[in-house]
């Protein structure tokens, strides 16, 4: 047992139950469905912006890109224009690859030492599942815009269509069995988050570095995905009521319609927690990656001077001081001097 993940697991189960019991037994729909989501959204927006502002206020005194390829030098030497960009265009492509495709993580390889032999082994699983996780999360988020817009924008409907390609339907005069279109994104999200959790448990060195704050968001997202999948496929909630409720939230005229299942409030509560937790956690890598000075700067500080706003004068040992100390020896050795004595 590891106290870090046990703590996080217990915390998430506890929060899950609080919301469930709060709605089911105490009828606190307004608290978990309205008050907490509003507060969480405010915390998220204000927290996110202030964190980014904090980063932005710290200057970038030096131009320190990690160069991952050939520099721009002589015209006949082929530059790695993306991995070692010297122009803003190159930086934009580098950043886009980094943010959209996790370029650096794709470089990953696993080191192994067996019987004195060093090997660097193909290892793209983390890259693959990280990519699956983030992209499916994005798709899920965009799909959810259905609940906050009227009419539903075309791209949301189009994405839903693409996302639900797998349908299980038996429709004839005798039986009518059908699941709603299965959203691939939801399943992928849950699978990827479980993978990310399992690698924290099974790769010993990753387990060793993992903190409670690494497990907590994983469990939280698992619980969110789980409650969402429950609602869609198993314990059906009143979808018309849900839409009425969410539209009430975004139009600032919230109300609690009758008959939406408790799972829905649990789902909303957990999402609210994730939002509120976000700005204080490592999840801020979402914003941080854009500002990372080893990636978002061109390696051109020899061609164009980079200015450090706090560059201050320092004590130096001047040539005059140097010559004063060594003048006689310099003259004796036949080295030129500024002053003969």
């Amino acid at each position: 047992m590891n106290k870090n993940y046990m703590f996080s697991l217990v915390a998430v189960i506890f929060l899950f139950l609080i919301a469930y019991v709060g709605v089911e037994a105490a009828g606190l729909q307004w608290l978990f469905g309205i008050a907490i989501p509003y507060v969480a959204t405010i915390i998220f927006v204000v927290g996110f912006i202030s964190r980014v502002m904090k980063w932005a206020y710290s200057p970038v005194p030096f131009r320190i890109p990690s160069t991952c390829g050939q520099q721009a030098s002589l015209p006949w030497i082929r530059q790695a224009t993306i991995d070692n960009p010297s122009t803003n265009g190159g930086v934009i492509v580098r950043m886009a690859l980094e943010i959209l495709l996790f370029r650096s993580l794709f470089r990953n390889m696993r080191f192994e030492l067996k019987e004195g032999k060093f090997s660097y082994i193909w290892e793209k699983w983390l890259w693959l599942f990280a990519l699956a996780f983030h992209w499916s999360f994005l798709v899920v988020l965009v799909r959810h815009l259905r609940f906050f817009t009227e009419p539903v924008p075309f791209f949301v409907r189009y994405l839903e269509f693409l996302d639900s390609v797998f349908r299980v339907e038996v429709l004839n005069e005798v039986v009518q069995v059908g699941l709603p279109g299965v959203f691939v994104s939801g399943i992928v999200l849950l699978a990827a988050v479980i993978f990310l959790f399992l690698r924290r448990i099974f790769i010993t060195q990753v387990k060793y570095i993992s903190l409670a704050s690494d497990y907590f968001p994983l469990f939280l997202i698992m619980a969110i995905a789980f409650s969402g999948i429950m609602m869609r496929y198993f314990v059906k909630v009143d979808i018309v009521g849900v839409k009425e409720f969410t539209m009430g939230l975004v139009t600032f005229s919230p109300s609690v319609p009758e008959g939406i299942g408790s799972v829905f409030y649990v789902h909303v509560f957990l999402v609210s927690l994730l939002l509120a937790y976000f700005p204080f956690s490592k999840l801020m890598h979402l914003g941080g990656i854009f500002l990372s000075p080893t990636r978002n700067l061109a390696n051109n500080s020899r061609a164009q001077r980079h200015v450090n706003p706090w560059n201050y004068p320092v004590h130096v040992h001047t040539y005059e001081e140097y010559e004063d100390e060594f003048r006689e020896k310099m003259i004796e050795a036949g080295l030129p001097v500024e002053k003969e004595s």
Partner: protein
Amino acid sequence: MADDLAKPEELLENSGYKRPATGWMDTPIDIRPGMYCYASNPKSVEYVGLPNPRAWNPIDEDWKLPENWQEILHKGMKERLERFRSFRIFMDICVRCGACADKCHFFIGTGDPKNMPVLRAELIRSVYRNDFTTFGKIFKGVAGARPLTLDVLKEWWYYFFQCTECRRCSVFCPYGIDTAEITIIGRELLNLLGLNIDWIATPVANCYRTGNHLGIQPHAFKDMMDFFIEDIEEITGVNVEPSFNRKGADILFITPSGDVFADPGTYSCMGYMMLFKYLKDKYGFDITWSTYASEGGNFGFFTSHETMKRLNSKMYAEAKRLGVKWILGGECGHMWRVINQYMDTMNGPTDFLEEPVSPITGTKFENARSTKMVHIAEFVADLIKHDKLELDPARNDNKIVTFHDSCNPARGMGMLDEPRYVIQNVCNNFYEMPPNTIRENTFCCGSGAGLNAGEDMELRMCGGMPRANAVKYVHEKNGVNMLACVCAIDRAVFPALMDYWVPDVDVTGMSELVANALIMPGEKERDTDLRGEPLPGKEEEDE
């Protein structure tokens, strides 16, 4: 080499990841001989006016810290969070995915989990969370926060001086978190309390006073070069006498003093001298050396940003005093990271210099138009491309060469193909090491960033293990017997590393190989290379 150093097989055996029984925050620090460098000499610290000069010993209980050391560090961290966006972001956004872990040569070599880049950073991040974040203040240990105790401080010291700032981890980090940056700032904080190592502190003081890390005074510097002149004359029959501190020269040449001081760097130094003489005779090339700016390297970079700036200032100051047009720089690793990413920002702008143009080929070095400093590999590659050097690569035929990309030119600059182009034009036998160990993936020598002392030999042999292993691979497969590099620290430390792991491989610099192949005007028939070893085909005559 230290007598009590473990055998290579033992080190190899020992290198795998060892998971301690306790969590990393609860595993006490064990400062082990062979793995750390001696504490800074108070005289050196005092000479450059850095805080808390006193004699102290890392293995003593009492480190003789100022009374309010926690306050000093807290303030120091706050100041640096406000000054460096890198520091603030790297403290905030790590997700501990572990992709960096087995990229670090020290982790591979020692198996110590605190040598995983992520944990090295967590050492300081845990204190950051405790002191500067809301969650850390509320949830303490659960949020991964811990107060800065004396043991934590000792851990900082031990592990920030077990990092060579090579940036290999930053290549693999999905957010570009750069442990070098964290180590640089970590060491800067330690220096606020006078916690440097002497292998850094004394070269810094030397460099400040005499112009170079080794403390070579001007007359001695000239003396040492005079020896090279004699050696070269003996081998080639040509007198290559250079000029020093000469006003009105076109170009100022600066290289690490290690090249002047110890083998095999000295052969590269002889290489520079021969190249300049060749260019002078053939094309009227006009270059001067300086005894004041007689250091390309910058151990200030391993101390603090301010110390780096103080030492680096001599390059431009001397260029200005001598009235040269631009600066040519020799082979050195971290020197070139400083020049590429810091120098112009710190000590520019350089309106007193001209945009560098090769007086021989007319090539404009566009990529250096603001710093006005060109790397010797760029300069020579351009000469060879324009067919300006008469070369006989067959003279290097008994050398089967591979090239080690030094960390800083690779990952803090991207100078990968220039030295390869030069080497492949002066050597006929060239083999690359496996692709996961060269170019941006290159493995550190294990002794950079000021860790090239004698007392931390076990650390060095562990850290250099992955590099040595790749050399061993091409040694066995292709018969490689010469490891070429463009870094003075490499040249100083690789002989010991090779001796330990791959005994039949020697170490050389690019410029040494160039000079061996260079046919100088008026030279006699050479029988030996610069080391006095017989040239290919001349072995028998030697007997």
